[in-house]
């Protein structure tokens, strides 16, 4: 039964929210992937908690709507359980770099074959605008009325150093390019990270600024050192695939090449293996 890609759930994102761009890009990416023999039925998603995560209800893609900060771990469990699926974890910047940063860093370190799409709006929007890990110094929110007194992280730098084998930046204002980036990230076998610059019209309306400083990275992917240098750059902010490397995904070796759900032993064989193990 063919379903519309966008569900009938009432959309409650603010008019003009960058999340619309990300959802439209995902819709296009799924189309691109279908053309590359990755059927929609094999894409399984998860999301954290926050404005970004409402994408889970709005898109007609199967998955598990996880909890704040844990979508990366949820995604890794999915991939390990059935390596035949393509797993996409949508998360926010607070979600991925605050509550869940350990999972992000380790997923990259072990090259888990999941795609993390990080909606980077630099704010905790759903909880009414507190500062987040990528909020600029001086950012004023209800928890920092005198201005954020921490410096922001540069997510691509963290992910490159942690071992991501695919690292890219997209912009919710450039849906065509973002769709290509996300499709490439899902296709990549290994840990892929996509930082999406995504203004929140209510709290961090950077559209005009981004339209000035976001450029297109024509020459990517780059050598590691060059990718890192560019990831540190504050202006302009190039969008594109910064880095890509072939490396055996974690789930291949940890599962010894098996697919746990498809290659499950039959009971007789299992009982024999247990008997042998007990026997010494």
């Amino acid at each position, binding site marked *: 039964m063919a379903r519309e890609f966008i569900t009938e759930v009432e959309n409650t994102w603010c008019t003009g929210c960058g999340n619309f761009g990300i959802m439209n890009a995902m819709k296009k990416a799924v189309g691109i992937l279908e053309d590359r023999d990755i059927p929609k039925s094999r894409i399984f998603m998860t999301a954290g908690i926050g404005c970004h995560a409402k994408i889970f209800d709005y898109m007609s893609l199967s998955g598990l*709507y996880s909890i704040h900060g844990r979508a990366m771990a949820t995604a890794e*469990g999915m991939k390990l359980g059935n390596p*035949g699926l393509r797993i996409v974890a949508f998360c926010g910047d607070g979600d991925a770099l605050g509550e869940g940063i350990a999972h992000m860093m*380790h997923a990259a370190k072990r090259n888990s074959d999941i795609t993390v799409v990080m909606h980077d709006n630099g704010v905790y929007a759903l909880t009414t605008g507190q500062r987040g890990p990528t909020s600029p110094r001086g950012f004023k929110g209800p928890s920092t009325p005198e201005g954020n007194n921490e410096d922001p992280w540069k997510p691509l730098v963290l992910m490159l150093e942690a071992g991501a084998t695919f690292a890219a930046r997209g912009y919710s204002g450039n849906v065509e390019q973002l769709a290509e980036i996300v499709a490439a990230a899902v296709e990549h076998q290994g840990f892929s990270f996509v930082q999406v610059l995504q203004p929140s019209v209510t709290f961090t309306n950077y559209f005009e600024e981004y339209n000035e400083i976001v450029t297109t990275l024509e020459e990517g992917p780059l050598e590691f050192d060059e990718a890192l240098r560019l990831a540190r750059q504050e202006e302009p902010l190039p969008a594109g695939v910064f880095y890509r490397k072939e490396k055996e995904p974690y789930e291949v070796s940890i599962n010894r090449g098996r697919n746990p759900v498809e290659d499950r032993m039959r009971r007789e064989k*299992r009982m024999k293996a247990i008997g042998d193990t007990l026997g010494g």
Partner: protein
Amino acid sequence: MSERDTFSFIVGGRAGAGVKKAGSVASNLFASMKRYVFQMDDYQSLIRGGHNFVATSTSLRPILSHYMRADLLVALDARSVRAHREDVREDAVLVYNSDEVEEGDLPDGVDAIGVAMKEAAKEYPNPELRLGLAGPTALAACIGLSRDDLAELIEREYKRDLEANQAFADAVYDAVSEKAGGRFELEEGDEERPMLTGNEAIALGACAAGLDVYFAYPMTPASTILHFLAKHGKKLGVTAMQPESEIAVANMAVGAAAVGARAMVGTSGGGFALMEEAFSLAGMAEVPFLGVLSSRPGPSTGVPTYTEQADLHFALHPGQGDIPRVVASPGTVEEAYILAAEMLALVWEFQAQGVLLTEKHLSESRVTAAIDLDSAAEVSPVMHEDGEYKRYVSAENGVSPLLFPPSEELINWTSYEHDESGFTTEEAGEIAAMHDKRNRKTEAMKERLKGMRAVNRHGDGGQVIFTYGSTTMSVLEALKARGLEATVVQPVYLKPFPVWELDEYSGANPIVVEQSSTGQFATLLRYELGVEPSKVITKYDGRPFEPDDLAAELEKAIG
């Protein structure tokens, strides 16, 4: 030997002296004599130094505890003599390292045999590491094993540096044989049985039911499940993974289950605390989720390598919100195997969560076990057959069929309150309806448990004693040791609490035996059954009950 039908061997020394290995080899020797064996390892949370010992007891009948009163004590250092001087029996043999032990430290009245162990071990590059070999060697001499049989034993158990091992063992064997050769006659039993720990039984039981993946972060006393499955996973068809934290562990297990993989996690109290939000997620999303909680003395870091039962209420109530849950605790190693399989099957049948609660004393004690492997349950969830799929479609027993990717249907698992399709809802009617649906699973689980054995009753007549978990073994062995008559009631399932099997005790005044300082189990019994214990016997010093000591307390309480 007196009319006692048990024989006890203790070997003690510093960590790094091969104490654990010595104890295991002694146990293997008893098992090879077709006897029943119970081995308890007492060790500290350190890698070198300190005081470690193994107490291993054997009998021709099933034995459910070690005994601390030793017939043979092998002390590899001076501290072992001081620590166990009160533990030796009057007719015991004490073999000690005369290079370290002062004669003045020796207990009176025992047959003490000094062996210059350090001197005998000087052939080794690191002599300290080989001291442990003196344990099984002294045992072999005392039970009259021939020199050839000993040589065979060493070849089997101590392969590395074999020649030096033989020379060291010969020196110990000669010294002990001269004074106590063949002192103890241990009859051969009826059948050789495999030896395994509670944790190994849990791992194997879960495998038997169809475990696919195991996630765990290192934490004593649960870690050996991870080690065992990592080592044997290839043969058993199981993936064992060590993620970055228990938070990752639990959430990965949720993700794996959502694509159809039968997952299990294991930890101790501190790690279990970190898993709580995932327990709650699994409850809302109705993800089959089985966690092993192997307790050690808390609160907090507590005493990492010892035993306690103070996580009972924690195990009954992890995570925010109303959640259908099954909690059970095995009383023996055999039961650990059966229960791990049964609980994995149950959590998949009801898409619910389970906590297999155990303690260090069962997790790490090593026993001869007769397990009927084929009696293990098998995971067999209710699957969606055809037509439009709704993840949370209303069902009489609360259980909506499962469907896994890849599928053309939309499969929505979610942590938010949701409608039948799994879309987020804030509608009053839908919220209440979904609570009702989940709660119906608790009722369905109760009905299911009514058809199973949820309570064990041991013995028939006399005083009623309630106990659970590993303490069951201590109570049963204590009664055996003194020939006391009692009815021991051991609820295996603790949630849903099997009141239907325990009606007759409502208003009774049983003795309760447990290992928590506040009597958590007694509190549960008061709440669930309305009983008022006549006496609550507790022990909370990290050590398991000793059967002779517990028997004395029980005798006093029974009156």
